[in-house]
């Protein structure tokens, strides 16, 4: 492993201490008297009705899906952008093709009315 990532590794190990410290102090200083009423979950002035984990609509899923597509696109484009000094003019055409194909995906989703929030 090259040394660049050692810093990040240290960060992963040490960073949990920073939220742990205030929360720990809070646990020491704060009162701890849980009771039934206090722990009830909140819902607009009344007790919560039914199950919390309700079914969500398909919209969220589709947005996440389009996001995945564009995320992967970015993963492909980032190294090319970083190597942009070394690539030829031909690369522009390839990038253009790549982006246009994915724009077609966006256009399809748009045309099907998937992007309307209802």
């Amino acid at each position, binding site marked *: 492993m090259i040394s660049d990532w050692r810093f990040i590794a240290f960060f992963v190990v040490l960073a949990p201490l920073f939220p742990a410290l205030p929360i720990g102090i809070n646990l020491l200083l704060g009162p701890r008297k849980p009771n039934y009423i206090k722990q009830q979950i909140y819902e607009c002035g009344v007790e919560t009705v039914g199950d919390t984990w309700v079914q969500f609509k398909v919209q969220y899923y589709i947005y996440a899906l389009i996001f995945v597509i564009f995320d992967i696109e970015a993963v492909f484009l980032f190294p090319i952008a*970083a190597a942009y000094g070394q690539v030829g003019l031909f690369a522009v055409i*390839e990038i253009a093709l790549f982006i246009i194909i994915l724009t077609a995906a966006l256009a399809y989703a748009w045309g*099907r009315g998937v992007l309307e929030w209802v």
Partner: protein
Amino acid sequence: MIEQIIFIVISLFTLMMGWIVVSNNNLFHAALALMASFLGVAGLYVMLDAGFLAMAQLLVYIGAISILIIFAIMLTRRMMQTEESPFNSQPGLAGITAVSVFAVIAFIFWQMREFWPLGAGEGAMPPADKSIILGSVAKLGEYFVSPDAFVLPFEVASVMLLAALIGSIWVAWPKTEDES
């Protein structure tokens, strides 16, 4: 030495999380464990000097695919808290699959035996130069658009993504009247 220990620890963590994914009854917890397992894999990539791949793993698998999975869980809420055992009754078939996958991997490793003793000992491959490792991302980008290298897979990837999106919208989105 220390690096090898860390590598083994991360590998064990990844495997353990993988075990939780398949054995937990709570789908949400299984999804969380899946993310932790992805995180472990990203750690392994970092250990292997593939920083870009590790970050791509975080970005795509934890940031996107896992979210997609959780959204999918929310769509199928009846499956969320099941009392049934998550195990099916096909241990034989699963065993054969596992053994054959393992055999393939072992075979590949055996084929690569001349590269085995990495870093130390006689006749070992020396560790790669730091500048090569740091330049590998730009090299990857160059190869993506180079006609001699990966330009075809690169373009095919975009077509595949297009197909995936159209396909899943076709399946998931309620059809309009003239289509059905």
